[in-house]
């Protein structure tokens, strides 16, 4: 089991009811982590429509999950 810090933005934050949380998981990669948290919070957005960042840098969904890292799920952006 490892602990990670998870950040939620925009509609994901509304659905999670919080901007961040610490989560203890057996997920081996970021894709599996999102699946877990999607089930937990009822996120509408499928993984295909998100990007993911680890410790402030864009990452790949197949990247292994590192204990203690800060993971952000990035819904489709709408700046400008």
């Amino acid at each position, binding site marked *: 089991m490892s602990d990670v810090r998870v*950040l939620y933005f925009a*509609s994901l934050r509304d659905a999670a009811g919080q901007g961040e949380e610490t989560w203890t998981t057996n997920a081996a990669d970021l894709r599996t982590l999102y699946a877990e948290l999607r089930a937990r919070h009822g996120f509408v957005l499928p993984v295909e429509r998100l990007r993911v960042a680890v410790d*402030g840098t*864009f990452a790949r969904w197949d990247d292994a999950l590192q204990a203690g890292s800060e993971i*952000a799920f990035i*819904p*489709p952006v*709408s*700046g*400008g």
Partner: protein
Amino acid sequence: MDSREFWLADAPVDLAPLRRRVQHDRAGAFASFEGWVRDHNDGRPVLGLRYESYVALAEAEGAKVVAEARERFDLCAALCVHRIGDLAIGDMAVWVGVTAAHRGAAFDACRYIIDEIKDRVPIWKHERYADGDAGWLHPESPRGGDA
């Protein structure tokens, strides 16, 4: 004065110092773009909006966009600032300013920067509508929501 080429501002932006930062004696062309809060979106009347961002990643990704523009086009200077927080109709949401010796490079780089910012930088718009509804905009496809 900020020396970064992209940053997020949580209060209204004074344009005069930005213009001064892009001035160069060899600059013959200054192209700029501003995104303003519209009173409608997709046909729905809009009362106002809020921008939220993943600040650290947005500022890193925005700086990368501006650096890419400087590599691709022959520029004197390029800057971009994006608002976060609450905005009213008519408020400026984003400013892009580019100077170059010639206008082709200035126009192309200005367009490149705003297109990529809208496409890649983690900023989200939350709109409040006249009918009482409100919600986050998560466009289906990049650049579908041309504004």
